[in-house]
């Protein structure tokens, strides 16, 4: 694979990865760091894959893009789960975002990836390393809690 082709693919993923990073940890610098660190983990683990994958055909490109995106997102979730405990103050938010940041990490990830990045349930299984029923549960509970918490936020002003 040519270096330029892979970088074009990564460049196209960066905006979505950054937004996802912000959904995991609501801070611009932390979101940037999350993308960089997850990308490093991915490069170290998948070095051989990166050097050998072919991106000439559009079908191959789509397959590689899906793999790269889900792997990096998966690493981001894992890294965020380790960091979130030290960054609790960032999660105490007010306004419209507060309900979302009161959900747990899997619920937030599942909802964001599905509703904002348009991932399918099978992709969510890859990213979150969960069974299908667990993904469905995270989505369902996430939606219910989001509505509930938003309503109670509005009621409490």
């Amino acid at each position, binding site marked *: 694979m040519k270096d330029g082709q892979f970088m074009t693919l990564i460049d196209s993923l960066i905006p979505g990865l950054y937004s996802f990073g912000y959904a995991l940890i609501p801070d611009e610098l932390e979101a940037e760091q999350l993308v960089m660190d997850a990308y490093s983990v991915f490069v170290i683990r998948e070095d051989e894959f990166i050097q050998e994958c072919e991106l000439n055909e559009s079908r191959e490109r789509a397959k590689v893009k899906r793999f790269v995106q889900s792997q990096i997102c998966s690493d981001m979730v894992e890294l965020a789960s380790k960091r979130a405990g030290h960054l609790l103050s960032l999660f105490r938010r007010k306004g419209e975002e507060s309900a979302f940041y009161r959900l747990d990490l899997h619920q937030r990830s599942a*909802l964001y990836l599905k509703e904002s990045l348009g991932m399918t349930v099978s992709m969510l299984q890859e990213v979150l390393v969960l069974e299908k029923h667990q993904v469905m549960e995270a989505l369902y509970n996430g*939606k219910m809690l989001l509505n509930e918490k938003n309503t109670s936020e509005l009621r409490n002003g």
Partner: protein
Amino acid sequence: MDELKNQVPGGFSAMVNAYLDGSLTSEKESYVEEIVATNPSASKIFQQRSNERDKIKSLIPHVEITKDSLRTLKREVRDINKNLMKAKKTSIASRISSVLNTTIFEF
């Protein structure tokens, strides 16, 4: 007869969710659209699901990346590649040259 016409087919609600996800085949999409257009109960379910989906989407923050962050991240991923991927797959010529400890094209 009207009652029958107003009945919602089994599994319709799940089909609407899949429709809103964009994961239905075009054939099934047309089927949902046809039922929604002709069946008031189905239309009500569709509207309800669609509103719920919009509400959920509006509660999920979507932060657009700034130009500065995009520039930083593009630069960083290139540095990461340079530092972590270098020299893993070297050409046969350079491998032979490293064995011979000389540049094989310089005779």
